[in-house]
């Protein structure tokens, strides 16, 4: 094996060892009957940080995804602008002061979709490639 082949092999091994989890984007979704057509990132951020309970005047219960899900990390980095450690520290501040608790979470995109499609007061986020007519998209983060 010459040097060039060895380098190519090493690049291949490196690339193969890096987990590549790509999503088409994060879609923030509500029930089709919920009276919101579009929401902005700041409103969604404030809702998921417990700073408000309403988006455009409508009271909504945010649904989170389980820690460790790639789509969860993507949502919090793109929309809420916090990484997992910053988010943990943020909620620790609120939990241990009686100031609030994080949104309840479900296991994955399908569970979010199922829950949001059955409740008009729920809001969640999923991989945008999984959007269908059972839910309504109000924001997309690419």
């Amino acid at each position, binding site marked *: 094996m010459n040097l060039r082949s060895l380098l190519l092999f090493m690049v291949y091994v490196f690339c193969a060892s890096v987990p590549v989890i790509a999503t088409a984007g994060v879609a923030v979704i509500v029930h089709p009957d919920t009276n919101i057509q579009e929401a902005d990132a700041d409103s969604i951020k404030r809702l998921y940080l417990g*700073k408000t309970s309403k988006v455009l005047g409508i009271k909504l219960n945010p649904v989170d995804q389980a820690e460790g899900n790639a789509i969860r990390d993507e949502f919090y980095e793109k929309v809420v602008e916090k990484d997992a450690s910053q988010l*943990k520290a943020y909620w*620790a501040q609120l939990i*241990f002061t*009686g*100031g609030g608790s994080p949104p309840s979470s479900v296991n994955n995109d399908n569970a979010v979709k199922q829950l949001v499609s059955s409740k008009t007061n729920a809001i969640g986020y999923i991989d945008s490639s999984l959007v269908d007519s059972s839910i309504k998209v109000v924001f997309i983060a690419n």
Partner: protein
Amino acid sequence: MNLEKTRILVYILAVILYSNVAYSRSLSHNGFLTAGFSQTDNEISFIGVTDEMNFSDLSLIGIQTTFKPSEGPFQFVTQLLARGNQGWDVDAEWAYVGARLTDSFEFQVGKVRAPMFMISETLDVGITYPWIRPPEELYGFNNIPFTTINGLKFKYRNEGQYFDYDLLIYGGENPEETVTSNGLEYLIVLKIAGIEANFVRDNFKLRLSYHDAYDLFLDFAAELAANPTLATLFAGYPNGIIESNSTFSTLGLDYNDGRFLLMAEVGQRKVRENSTNVNWFVTVGYQFGRFLPHLTHSVINITEVETNGTINNEQQSTILGVKISVTPAIVVKAELSHTHVPDIPDDSLAAGLFDALPVLVSFEDDKVNMVNLAINMVF
């Protein structure tokens, strides 16, 4: 931990476990833990640490249980805390009933945290701030000798056009409690009321507060009786009781955009007609991935000295530290600090925050370096 407290802890844990079965949807448990190490290069104890390895001063564990009935605005919160430097005795740090009556208005009644500082509420939850030890010059017991009160807190929050804000009014008293300062044990008797305002916009927070400890006594009569040399130092207090009715005002700033960190806070404590001190710190840091290196300068500045003699705690510290996020729930921290007690002309009562009285040891122009290592966890 004594037998009685162990029984209480076992009982509470049993209640929690039983309740968890009965009300699993309404009951939540959260906890935090710090395991740490401290050592100085000075044989005289400084904020509880000497030149011998100390694994107990920083270490603590806390368990918080919140019971929120499925209907109604109320919640019942208990936080049990055990500290290594108090022999791991378990105490109910918090025990209150709270209610959020509307989106804007809430209250708490019971044993609650005294909201003296910017991070008072999470003082024991190390994962929420950058340092291992919040700056002692401002946060130390020497400045404010209590952390909790039995009382009431009312909080109003709202969203303004340009910023969110909240206003908090509180009042209460401290159950008689013993604290140590400069190696001397005091019994505290306290009544206090105050107001706090927070203004938040994006990554920026401004905090203002004012507190009036209108009935504050520090009782060291027992120490005075046991140690006659104290009579000279505290000639103005022959009964061993210092009436320290005080006001305390603070201004705090916090900016954290996920990369750049700036924290600053100043507190002025005014003991009526006696003395005034202005204590402050500034912290800057920058997040590099998992690493948050930070630098702090922290000062005790006595601006008005009591005439009939008390210990002068002037000192300043520089703290260099790093906070490393191992996982979202676990951080490792390392810190080096350098503290200097200045040479104060014509003042033989300088002691900084050394745990000894200046009649016994001279601390003027003294220096102390400290190393701290800690793991903080929430669960």
